[in-house]
């Protein structure tokens, strides 16, 4: 475990995208003049709906795509001209892409073998990487004989064996069942902290991003819609798109045409306010989620505690009014016309 750590105590994996554009042969622009700075040793989630350019951004960083224009720096070295293996990055592929014909040990040792490391040395290093992910006892197995969670650990060991400055993860948790996802998530975070390298993690799940990231980058149509800490994005959405994508917010159009967001758990059912009709009530375990529809058919949601619902019961079809405190208003950029 110790040798997988960087020799220098300093965290590694500072990344900078400078005006990076990726235009595909068909003319489609996947990444549009992207500027992005990632601090060394941080956990970054690239978040967004499918087709927003997050995977292309990751592949540009890995070297599996070349930018049309712009520069990408890793630890202050321009890596655009370098092949993937010389960049100091390692990629963990979606559904892992383990070599089905090689044992777990040979999978992990593959990149060392390609570099011409002698058998004994590369097997020793591979064993070490497997020990780090607690998969050493499975070294002789084939990938097909492992569960999804075990394959994921092997893929992680394979990526870490070359001691990269940054680990790139393409939807690493999407192939796991929900129970395992939570556990693996915690492990990824632990590895990132212990190795002091940066992790760039592509996901379309805001839960994952909120739980893991030091820095969340929410992308839309090849551009960064908003970036910051998870709290920044969730609690202070800049646009209606962010508020809707992160969830947990109601977007209201004020009479003047401007938009505001109010968190669902801060929106109240009150005596007076914005008129709405109750569409349904769902039990969430910790409370109730009341689904409502506005006058123009907008969808709203209010989270109530059990006690609050008991005190003021609502049922589908009932007309109610929505209210919120001044302090909970988050003004959004753009007008209601753009929001819908």
């Amino acid at each position, binding site marked *: 475990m110790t040798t997988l750590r960087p020799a220098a105590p300093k965290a590694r994996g500072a990344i900078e995208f400078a005006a990076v554009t990726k235009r595909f042969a068909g003319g489609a622009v996947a990444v549009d003049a992207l500027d992005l700075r990632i601090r060394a040793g941080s956990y970054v989630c690239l978040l967004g709906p499918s087709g927003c350019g997050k995977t292309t951004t990751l592949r540009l960083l890995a070297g*599996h795509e070349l930018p049309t224009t712009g520069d990408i720096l890793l630890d202050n070295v321009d890596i655009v001209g370098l092949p*993937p293996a010389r960049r100091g990055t390692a*990629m963990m592929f979606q559904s892992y892409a383990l*070599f089905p014909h090689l044992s777990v040990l040979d999978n992990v040792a593959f990149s060392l073998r390609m570099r011409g490391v002698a058998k004994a040395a590369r097997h020793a290093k591979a064993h070490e990487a497997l020990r780090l992910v607690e998969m050493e006892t499975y070294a002789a197995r084939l990938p097909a004989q492992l569960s999804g969670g075990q394959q994921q650990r092997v893929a992680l060991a394979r990526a870490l064996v*070359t001691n990269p400055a940054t680990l790139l993860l393409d939807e690493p948790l999407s192939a796991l069942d929900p129970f395992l996802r939570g556990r693996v998530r915690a492990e990824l975070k632990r590895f990132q902290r212990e190795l002091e390298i940066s992790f760039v993690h592509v996901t379309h799940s805001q839960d994952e991003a909120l739980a893991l990231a030091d820095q969340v980058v929410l992308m839309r149509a090849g551009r960064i819609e908003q970036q910051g800490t998870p709290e920044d994005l969730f609690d202070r959405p800049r646009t209606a798109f962010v508020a809707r994508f992160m969830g947990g917010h109601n977007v209201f159009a004020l009479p003047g045409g401007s938009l505001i967001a109010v968190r669902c758990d801060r929106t109240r059912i009150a005596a007076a306010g914005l008129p709405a009709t109750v569409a349904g009530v769902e039990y969430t375990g910790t409370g109730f989620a009341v689904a409502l529809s506005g006058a123009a058919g907008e969808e709203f949601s209010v989270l109530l505690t059990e006690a609050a619902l008991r005190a003021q019961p609502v049922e589908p079809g009932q007309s109610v009014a929505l209210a919120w405190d001044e302090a909970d208003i988050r003004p959004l950029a753009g007008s209601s016309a753009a929001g819908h």
Partner: protein
Amino acid sequence: MPSSPDLAAAGGVPKAAPTAAPARRSWAPLLQSAPLWAVLLLFFVFPLLATAVVSLWDYTEYSLVPDVVSRNYVEMFEGCGDLSGGLCTTFRTYISTLRLCGMVWAVTLVLGFVVSYFLCFHVRSDGMRMALFLLCTAPFLTSNVIRMISWIPLLGREGVVNQALVALRLAERPQDWLLFSEFSVVLAFVHLYTLFVVVPVFNSMMRIDRRLLEAARDAGAGAWQTIWHVVVPLAKPGLVIGSIFVIVLVMGDFVTIGVMGGQQIASVGKVIQVQMSYLQFPAAAAQAVVLLALVLVVIAVMTKLVDIRREL
């Protein structure tokens, strides 16, 4: 006691069910597979057994004598124990056949791999890939014999290739090795059988997850390293199946070797054909049994290398 027969009947049903159900379960699949069994028995097992039985018969110039004798096998290997005067005819024939087979196998394997690799990994669009693949099968619209014979005007002494060589001053006089030689036999076989390697290898390669190639690149593998360490091992089932096709077809061939070799090259198939033309059926049958055994050994070794059933 009006209710007792009902009770007995009711009790009888669960008793009968467990015996009836397995009986139906065991017979139905056998019946369903009966047509296949019938075809295999009639056209595969029966001729094979007949050949094995006839190989033990005796024969004279004008008659077959049903018997159990080892004469045919003994005559086949007559003098093979004595190596002082060089190898016996049978051994020389087998070695010549194996040599041809080895050359054809090596060339078709490399060619088939390259063509499949090009189709799978270099052709980007599915439509183009399908079109090119169909183009590969186009020669099969003409018969084997025509495809073989059309080489003759090309390779003959006064053929197109020789005329071109002489005209371009690459050769002083027409080359003899082009036709009715091992070269022309191998060329014809490669022409005939490369597709039998391309198809299974293509099939294996199309199943390779493209992300594996990217993962190999990410791990620092160069193009050749990716081919050798990822593509070849994963295409191995196709390579083995294609090899079996080629080896089986070449080992038993007598037409191509006869026509393209100018009836000058020895092969086991040719020997069997000659023996049959002299009505020495038992001798031919014995020869066929030995050839079959040899080919089976080769296939057994190949299937040891890869579990084909996993891939089908």
